[in-house]
């Protein structure tokens, strides 16, 4: 899974969010390590939608209601994909720890 996808899925797994907000949260959660530039962000959103991992949703009753904004939320397939990715990362991390322990 591409890195931007993973971080986007993490954000939209919690609630329906619009594009700019996704970028801001990813920036916040990774402490600036991952910057989603505009084209990467929107292309990833398109790609994830095409693959059925996320979907557009009517805007929730938010204070900052803005008709132009598209809100995205994770789908069931998206959750599966995210869980699989999390397992894979966990396995990779476990392996790395084991190797490091051995080396010690």
């Amino acid at each position: 899974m591409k890195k931007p996808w993973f971080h986007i899925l993490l954000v939209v797994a919690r609630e329906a969010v619009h594009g700019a907000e996704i970028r801001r949260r990813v920036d916040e959660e990774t402490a600036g390590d991952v910057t989603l530039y505009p084209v990467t962000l929107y292309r990833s959103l398109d790609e994830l939608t095409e693959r059925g991992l996320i979907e557009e949703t009517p805007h929730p009753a938010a204070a900052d209601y803005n008709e132009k904004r598209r809100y995205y939320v994770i789908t069931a397939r998206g959750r599966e994909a995210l869980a699989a990715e999390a397992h894979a990362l966990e396995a990779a991390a476990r392996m790395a720890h084991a190797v490091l322990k051995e080396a010690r």
Partner: protein
Amino acid sequence: MKARGRWFRLLLRLLPSPFRRRHGDAMATELEQMKRDLGPSPRRVALLRLYLGATWDVLRHAFGTGAGRTGGSGWVDSLGADARFALRQFGRRWATTLTMLAILSVGMSVSILLFSFVHSYATRPPRGVPASEEVVRIRGVQSSAVYGAVVRTFGEEEIEAYRALTGPFEEFTAWADATGTVDAVEGGTVTSKITMVTGDYFGAIGVRPALGGGLPAEPPGDATLDRVVVLGYGIWDRLFGRDPGVLGRTVRVNGAPLTVVGVAPPGFMGLNRLGGFQVWTPLANRAVLLPEDVASDLAFRAAARLRPGVTPEAATAVVAGVAERVTRAMDRPLAADMRDPTADVVVLRSANGDPNFDNDVRMQVISFGILGLLVLLVTCANVSALLMSLAAARRQELVIRISIGAPRRRIVRQLLTESALLATLAGGAALAIVWYGLRWTMLRFPSLPADIAVAPAAVAFTFGAALLVGLLFGLAPALHATGVTIGSALRDSSAAVAGGRPKLQRRLVVAQIALTQPLVVALVAVLLMVIGSFRTGQYEQTDRLIALDLNAAAVNPGANFDESWSARPLEEVLPGLVAAIEGLPGVVDVVPQAGSLGALGAYQVLPEDRAGGEVETLHLVGSTAAPGYFATTGIEVVRGRELRAGDVDAGALQERGAAVPVLIGSGLAERLWRGADPVGRRLQPVGDSMRYAAELVVAGVIADPDRMPADATPEVYVAADPRSANPDLFIRTAADADPLVPQIRRLVTGQASGWTAYVTTVAALEAESLAIYRGVTRALLGAGIMALLLSAVGLYAVMAFSVGQRAREIAVRRAVGAPAEKIAARFVGEGVRLGMVGLAIGLPVSLVALRVLNGIMLEGLSGYPGVGLPEVTAVVVLLVVVTAVAATLVPAGRAAAVDPAEVLRRG
């Protein structure tokens, strides 16, 4: 901000259109939001990163793998790969790469600076004036049979007529220049240009004062309100130490109290670039600043701000009509040999003020341009040589890549990327150097004619040159390698492939030395001139010696250039002033300074007075010295006596049969009489066209100044004509002279109305000239060393490369018993030979450079001794040979240290 937003939208057009239609607005808004989200601290860097990142992001998705196309990578991604590979290559040969980068960036920045100077001078307004196409000069023009079109200044009627032209001009200002003193009462006094202006001078030309406001637009007519002045930045610095509290203070300009209402911005010297100290005051003050005859006959120049939509051509038509009408009505508008007075309107540029004055500057500008080109050529030749050796070292790598199936164009593209990357990196560094260099230059040289702005054309040109060199010499090995059969290349990596390359490279080094030579010759020549003209230690106890130079308080340049005025003639003023100064407590003695008689002509020692030295025809320069001059200044009389009252004086030099006593320097005495007592020996004029007929009799010998060059033009001192008044005095004091300086200034103001005085201790003068001397010699030495270093690097690269190429040959020679020293000597010899060939080719160019330099120096800076070719050539040849030897010693040493067995086994 807006422009940047548009730029991003333009970039977005590269993306597939459905995607762009769907998200275009959101992406543009997103970038703006990201900009707003940036932290406040290192904003500029963060912003740059954001822009670069966003650009890369678009390009990657437009052309790269991110575009989602299947199979193969887009060219942007592979460009990135090429660039990364190039960086690794550079890292592997970091020393050579860094050297090339350093040379390229320094060379590029120097040429950009020089070209920009040329460009700015031609296209920018004078220093301190913001560029605007609406601010124009109104130039008076007349024609002369001899000089063609010549600038003329305006009289008052003409100025009034132009001022009335509200059709073409929104704002109009005229000004006239005079000279005078500005006295800060406590801060001291300076001699300054006084520019008297009409209208809103600063507003019309768009100059914002550094402090306070400008001058009142319309003089209120109330004399007390008109009594205001705007100080030049230099005066503010000198007299007030840049005290912001200067506004509202009173200064005395030519004795009249004026209130300071503003300070001009740094660098601003008015529109006709007078230089030096300057103040601006309303024209209404002329009656209190200048004597009546001067005030009523001022020479004006004019500038204006055009009304929107009016072109300079349209304004010229109107102005020329007025000029003709006004000048026809005047009884004597022009000097005798001038005719066709008219006027035109041109957009204000630094270079279009006065063609007479600007000819000198144009010469400088052209030499700057040539210098810039030369620097660029040297740089390119040098980098080419380095690139060649770098490329040769990689030939095997390229051949291997081809042999395992890399397509030819892939390798060419790789090398192109490397060249472009090198040029880009160097260009970036060069721009940084230019940025700092400009700030430094503007601070260091306040008298530059225009604000230098980096000319985009100059940047593009130098960058293009660097790129071209990179492509030509970076690509050569690729074309070569791909053209050679793989088998032969692998079998013998040196002979078959390297073939003609060293020859080309050697030619480059020769070219580079030939080009460097004129640079170094010019630098050395100027250095020798500066050293040769510098004198110290002529006077004794200079902290107790005051120099006082009197100047007429105002001059009237322009129509009547030769008319200067003084309220009282010098002959009347001087005796009283001298007596008053002598009466000051602490003053020991007052003498006139030495005056110059100029060239006296050719002289020879009388036959009966010769004493062993060669019979030599001397071209003497004469100076006058008043009785007591040498004792007062502390110049030691080592033999004979000092000049005294009653000696036959300079007035008798023309009389045939007269015998004029002279003092000569010890160097000249030694040269003519070899230790024999020169006192009483005589010199007679020779040749037909002599101005002076009298014999010179040596009355005494004085000590020469330190560091006097042996071939300096010999100087003789003759007694000054007691009837002629010398406006420059030396004052010897009993103790430290500093406290007396302001007292003497006050005396001049009180006793010699119409005269201004420049008063300072000789110690201060010496310190100042020493500082300038040090600065100039340091700058010249630095530039010369840099040029030599450039050459040395090129030589080194070629020699090192040549050693690498000939490792086999050296090994064989060693194996058959050639001693290591002999092999080393061969390489050193080759380096020296290359140097000499370059020198021989560059000689004609240097000759021309030297002649031009001597011409400029003799005309512009009299007092500088000319420098002959032999000295300079000797110095340069020595420098180049030393450089060549130094640059070849290391590679030669390496050649000698090669282990023959090792090389032969490898081969």
